[in-house]
C-alpha cells in the first residue's frame, strides 16, 4: 500500500532549484532513505513532507489525499531532527509526553504511555532529568521516543545519527532497525552517509542537485548503479574512460583507454559510440602474484604503487600499462599481515566479465 506519494514536486529558492520535479512513492511500513551529498535538496524535500515548506509545484499525497494545505501540526507525521531539538526546559518525561499533551490526552494517559516509552528506550530512571544532563545517545533515544509516542503514520529522520561518534552510531543503527520493526511506523530517513543508508533501508533514493538519480533496494543500488553519480557516490568504484564499439543482447564490447577491448554485460538503452566509463568495484578486482596461473582471458600486468591499510581490509593502488590506475580491495583474512603485496611488486590484475559494467556519461 502506498502511504506517501510525492508527485512532481519542485521547490525553488530564488534562481536555485532545490528540489527538481521529484516523484517518489513510499510504501506503508517501509524504511525509506533519501541519500545524497549535502546541498542536494534532501532536507528541503523532508521539510516539504513535514509541512514546513510548501512546494512551488507538485503534490504530496497521504493515502491519495493531497496534504499540501495541511499545516505541520495537523499532519500525522513527526520529525527527529539532527540536533534532536529536545525542549531544554522540560524533563525527559515531559519531552516524550509533549505530543500527547498537545493532542489533549489526560495526565493519567500521558503518564502511562510515557512510562512505557521510557522503558522501551531503556531510560526509565531518567524521566526526571533534563536534556542537558543526558549523553548524546540518550538524547537520541529520547528524540526517537518522542517522535514515536503517539504512533505517527510517518517518522521523518533528518540525519539523526550525524552527531554521534562512530561506535555509538553503529549501535544506534541496530536500535533504529529494531525500533522501526517494532513500531511498524514508516520511516523516511535522510542522510549523506552511504553506509548508513545501505545498512538501514528497505529502499534508497539517491538524490543529486535536486533530482532523484535512482530509487532501489540497497544491494541493487550498490551492484547496479544506474549512472556515474550513483556508482561514485555509493561505495568506491574504479572508473575507466570507455566507448561502446559493439552492442548485442548479452553483452557490450567497450574500447577502454589504455586497456583495449573489454566485454561487459549488456545494458538497456546503450548505442554504439556511446561514451562513458567501465566501472568495477575494488572488491571485485583480483590481484595475484605474477607467477600464478589465471584462467580468465581478461588480465593485465600491473605494479603495486601504494596501499591503504584500514584493519579489516587493505586497498592497493595498482598502475596498469598506459598510466591507468586501478584500486583493488583485499580482505586481511590472515592475521598478522598488514598487506599481501609490497610496493613495487608486479602483479596480475583481473576481474570477471559479470562484475564490470558500462556507465554512460
Amino acid at each position: 500500500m502506498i502511504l506517501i506519494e510525492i508527485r512532481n514536486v519542485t521547490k525553488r529558492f530564488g534562481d536555485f532549484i532545490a528540489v527538481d520535479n521529484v516523484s517518489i512513492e513510499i510504501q506503508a511500513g517501509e524504511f525509506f532513505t533519501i541519500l545524497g551529498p549535502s546541498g542536494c535538496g534532501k532536507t528541503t524535500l523532508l521539510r516539504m513532507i513535514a509541512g514546513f515548506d510548501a512546494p512551488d509545484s507538485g503534490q504530496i499525497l497521504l493515502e491519495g489525499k493531497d496534504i499540501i494545505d495541511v499545516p505541520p501540526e495537523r499532519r500525522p507525521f513527526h520529525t527527529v531532527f539532527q540536533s534532536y531539538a529536545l525542549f531544554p526546559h522540560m524533563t525527559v518525561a515531559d519531552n516524550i509526553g509533549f505530543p500527547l499533551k498537545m493532542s489533549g490526552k489526560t495526565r493519567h494517559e500521558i503518564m502511562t504511555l510515557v512510562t512505557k516509552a521510557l522503558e522501551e528506550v531503556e531510560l526509565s530512571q531518567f524521566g526526571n532529568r533534563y536534556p542537558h544532563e543526558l549523553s548524546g545517545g540518550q538524547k537520541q533515544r529520547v528524540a526517537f521516543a518522542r517522535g514515536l509516542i503517539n504512533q505517527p503514520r510517518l517518522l521523518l529522520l533528518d540525519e539523526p545519527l550525524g552527531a554521534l561518534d562512530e561506535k555509538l552510531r553503529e549501535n544506534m543503527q541496530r536500535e533504529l532497525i529494531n525500533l522501526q520493526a517494532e513500531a511498524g511506523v514508516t520511516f523516511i530517513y535522510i542522510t549523506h552517509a552511504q553506509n548508513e543508508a545501505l545498512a538501514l533501508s528497505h529502499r534508497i533514493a539517491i538524490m543529486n542537485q535536486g533530482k532523484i538519480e535512482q530509487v532501489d533496494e540497497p544491494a541493487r543500488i550498490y551492484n547496479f548503479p544506474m549512472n556515474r553519480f550513483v556508482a561514485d557516490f555509493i561505495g568506491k568504484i574504479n572508473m575507466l574512460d570507455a566507448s561502446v564499439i559493439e552492442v548485442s543482447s548479452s553483452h557490450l564490447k567497450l574500447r577502454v583507454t589504455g586497456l583495449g577491448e573489454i566485454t561487459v554485460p549488456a545494458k538497456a538503452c546503450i548505442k554504439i559510440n556511446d561514451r562513458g566509463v567501465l566501472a568495477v568495484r575494488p572488491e571485485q578486482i583480483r590481484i595475484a602474484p605474477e607467477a600464478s596461473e589465471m584462467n580468465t582471458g581478461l588480465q593485465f600486468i600491473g605494479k603495486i604503487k601504494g596501499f591503504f591499510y584500514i584493519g579489516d581490509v587493505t586497498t592497493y593502488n595498482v598502475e596498469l600499462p598506459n598510466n591507468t590506475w586501478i584500486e583493488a580491495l583485499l580482505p586481511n583474512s590472515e592475521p598478522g599481515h598488514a598487506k599481501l603485496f609490497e610496493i613495487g611488486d608486479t602483479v596480475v590484475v583481473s576481474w570477471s566479465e559479470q562484475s564490470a559494467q558500462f556507465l554512460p556519461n
Partner: protein
Amino acid sequence: MILTSFRLPGEFGGLAPIYILPDKANADSGLTIETYQFFFSDFIYVEVFLKSFAVAIFTTIICITLAYPLALLIAHSPRKFRNLMIMLVVLPFASNFLIRIYAWMIILGPESALSHIINSALAFFDIAPVTLLFSPFAVLIAMIYVHLPFMILPLYTNLEKHDPLLLDAAQDLGANAWQRFWYVTWPQSLPGIFSGSALVFIPVLGMFAIPDILGGTGDIMIGNLIKDQFLGTRDWPFGSTLSIMLTLAVLSITGLFSWFARPTGKFA
C-alpha cells in the same frame, strides 16, 4: 546610614551631637529606636510604602505586557533590522531623563492635543472632563515610559537566544501557535522576564522625580518621603530609617526574584 537611623535629629537639622560624659554610669549612648517606632506608629508611612509597591508592581506588569510582543518582534526580525530596532528602543536615553519627564508634562497638560481628544470624547458620552496631569495616571504613564527599555532589552536578549528549531519541533509534534508560545517560548523566556522585572521594579519603587513632577499632591512615593526628610524637613535619622526600610524591601524582592530565576535545569 544604619547608624544615622538610630540617632536623634539635630535642632537645626542634621544630627544631634552625641555627648559622652565619662563620669556618668548610665551614659546616654545617643542611640535610639525612636525613628523606627515612629515609622510604624503612623499608618501613613506604611501606606506610602504599600502604594509605592502597588505602583511598582503595576508598572512591571504593564511593562511585561508591552515589552513582550515588541521583544518577540525584534527577535524574529531579520538580523539586519534588529540592531536598528534596538537602537530605537535605546534612543530616548540620549536625552536627559528630566527633559523626557517634562515632555510628558506638555503631552498630558490641560491644553495638550491628548487632553483635548480625551475630553471631547468624554464630553460626547456626557462625562465630566478629566485632568491628565498631576494624577496617578500621569505618574504611571511616565513610569512605564521610562522603564520600558529596561524590560525590552533583557527580554530581547533572552528571546533572541531561543533555538527556532524548537518551535519547528513543537509544531511538528502537534502544537498550534498558541501552544507553541505557551509551552516553548514563554517558559524559556522566564529568566528574561525575571531580570527585566528586577530592572523595572526596583527603580520604580525608589523613584521620586516622576511623582514630584507629574503627580498630584497625594501621589507621593517612598522616594519622595526620603527626599523630603533629607532636603525638606532635614530629619536625617528618619530619612535614614525610611531608606533602610526601602533597602530591606528591595533586598527581599530581589531575593525572591533570584530564587525564582535560580539556575535550575530548566533554564540551563
